[in-house]
């Protein structure tokens, strides 16, 4: 892919509460290059999850331009956005959000139901994705039979299985203990290094952000004036 994977120009997002307009994101301009590993940091309520939701096509900006993986998301209709999501973005949630009635393999197969693939091919790809996150021995386990770290790895496999150009993760370690969080972060790191995945992670954890190659800070809906490339050692030294 040539050009940025994510290109935001003067993006604003506000919500209506009664007759009041609540601005959440103000004049955000940001580019994410192919094969980049970006961390979005900021305090609670700073708008970082909202920004990630816009990149994922879950929501639309109030104004501005947003082009992701070559598609102008501000001009897409609902069904177009849905179809675009299926092929272009993988999303990892803080709370994993696996379907409890499906096994690990079936959960990973879910996005492939939307592609024109045979059942055997869907199974094969799901098993490959689960092998990638080192869960080949948990194919037929249900979410309640897995640890939190394993659930999150299944969720990452689900995000990867369609081979989307962009992987988005919203506080992927927020609900995990330190050891599981370390495993998940290493996994994201490996995906970035070995598979050249473009990854954007929202986190308020400096340890998690330190895995990224670039860190962008958001404060009260505005990219911090210090928003610039921060190196891993800078992020860690700024941690309390």
């Amino acid at each position, binding site marked *: 892919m040539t050009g940025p994977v994510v290109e935001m120009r003067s993006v604003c997002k506000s919500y209506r509460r009664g007759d009041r307009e609540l601005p959440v994101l103000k004049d955000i301009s940001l580019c994410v290059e192919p094969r980049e590993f970006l961390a979005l940091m900021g305090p609670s309520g700073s708008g970082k999850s909202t920004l990630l939701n816009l990149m994922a096509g*879950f929501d639309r900006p109030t104004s501005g331009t947003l082009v992701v993986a070559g598609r102008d998301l501000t001009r897409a209709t609902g069904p177009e956005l849905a179809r675009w*999501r299926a092929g272009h973005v993988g*999303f990892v949630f803080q709370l994993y*959000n696996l379907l409890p009635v499906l096994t690990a393999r*079936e959960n990973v197969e*879910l996005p492939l139901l939307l592609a024109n693939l045979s059942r055997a091919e869907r199974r094969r790809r799901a098993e490959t994705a689960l092998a990638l996150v080192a869960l080949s021995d948990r194919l037929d386990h249900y979410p309640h039979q897995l640890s939190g770290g394993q659930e999150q790895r299944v969720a990452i496999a689900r995000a990867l299985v369609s081979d989307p150009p962009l992987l988005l993760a919203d506080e992927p370690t927020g609900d995990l203990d330190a050891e599981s969080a370390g495993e998940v972060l290493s996994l994201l790191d490996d995906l970035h290094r070995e598979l050249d995945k473009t990854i954007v992670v929202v986190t308020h954890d400096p340890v998690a952000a330190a895995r990224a190659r670039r860190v962008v800070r958001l404060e009260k809906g505005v990219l911090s004036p210090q928003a610039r490339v921060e190196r891993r050692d800078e992020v860690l030294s700024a941690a309390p």
Partner: protein
Amino acid sequence: MKFFPLLLKNLLRRRRRAALTASSVAVCVFILVALVTLTTYMKNIIRETDSRLIVITRGRYSFLDPLPYAYRAKIEHVPGVVASNAVTLIIGTAGDKDEVVNGMALIPETYLDTGPQKEEIPPRDFDAFVRDRSAILVGPVMARRFGWKIGDTVTIRGSRYPVELRCRLVGYLTAEILSDYFAIHRSYLEEALGPDREPGVHFFPLKVESREAIPRVIGQIDALFANSAAETKSEPQRDFMMSLASLARNIRDVVLAMGLVIVLAIVLVVTNSMAISVRERTREMAVLKALGFTDGQVLKLVLGEAILLAMSGGVLGGAVSYAIFASSGFDLGSGPAGHFAVQPLALADGLALSLLIGVAAGSFPALHASRLRIVEALRWVR
């Protein structure tokens, strides 16, 4: 089709709720199948009688007002009447527990000309019935009810006619309509009542020489007894059966009205069940959309779930009604007109109703699920 396993797994996640909801649909379908079957049964009887040259003469105001037996001789003199019978309805009790039984006293010699078709009573049974004045024929349901077999002595205790009739069981009335009735000789009832009390006649079934003769015969008979103490009303057997059927139709209409109310209640039950189910899965719906499922696909998933749930209830209801009607003495598909059989059409109607319930009950929750906004739904906490 590739979404079917997902649909099924979602449906079965709360098994007890799904089973109870499906059962409520099953009750609904059972009622419909029973109604359709009953209607078909009545239509079959009417259609069957339509082809026969039988006229029924009864009391003008009700067939429950008995007519004098002496009318029979006058009726037989009406040109066009080929054969006549005189039927007295008997209500009584039988068995150790004094269970109520219904039957009729008639004239055996002309019974086959004016009553059931020949194939409805086995010839050997009928011959034995004609020969023995104290003989009785019973329907198979009644025989099963009391455990009676051919050769048994059967005692009927009359209630309107307070006599004890000891009869010998010689055969069966195989007509579906008579499956829980008995038939005895009129002369035997007369003898039991004694010379001082003559049993009245509830209706005279008459065989007429041709279809064209029927209107004339009817007119002449009713004119014969006009302005008498017991006026008559004559009508083709088909009309007579229809007037009986209209009684049943009134009952059916009441049941139908109640059935409609039940259907509405069931729709609300299934709607509620689906709405709760969708509400519990708000976050999952958002995840599906986040993965790329369109609003339409989410709508179809939820609607499909509701339809599958309702139709499994429909299949259950159809199977139960089939089993019940088959095991309660209604021979499926047998008898002169396949009378009280669960017809494939009734089962198809039942399945169509369950489909309708599924669509009606699933529409609102499906629409709600399809309109969920991902960002808001992901924040939903149970």
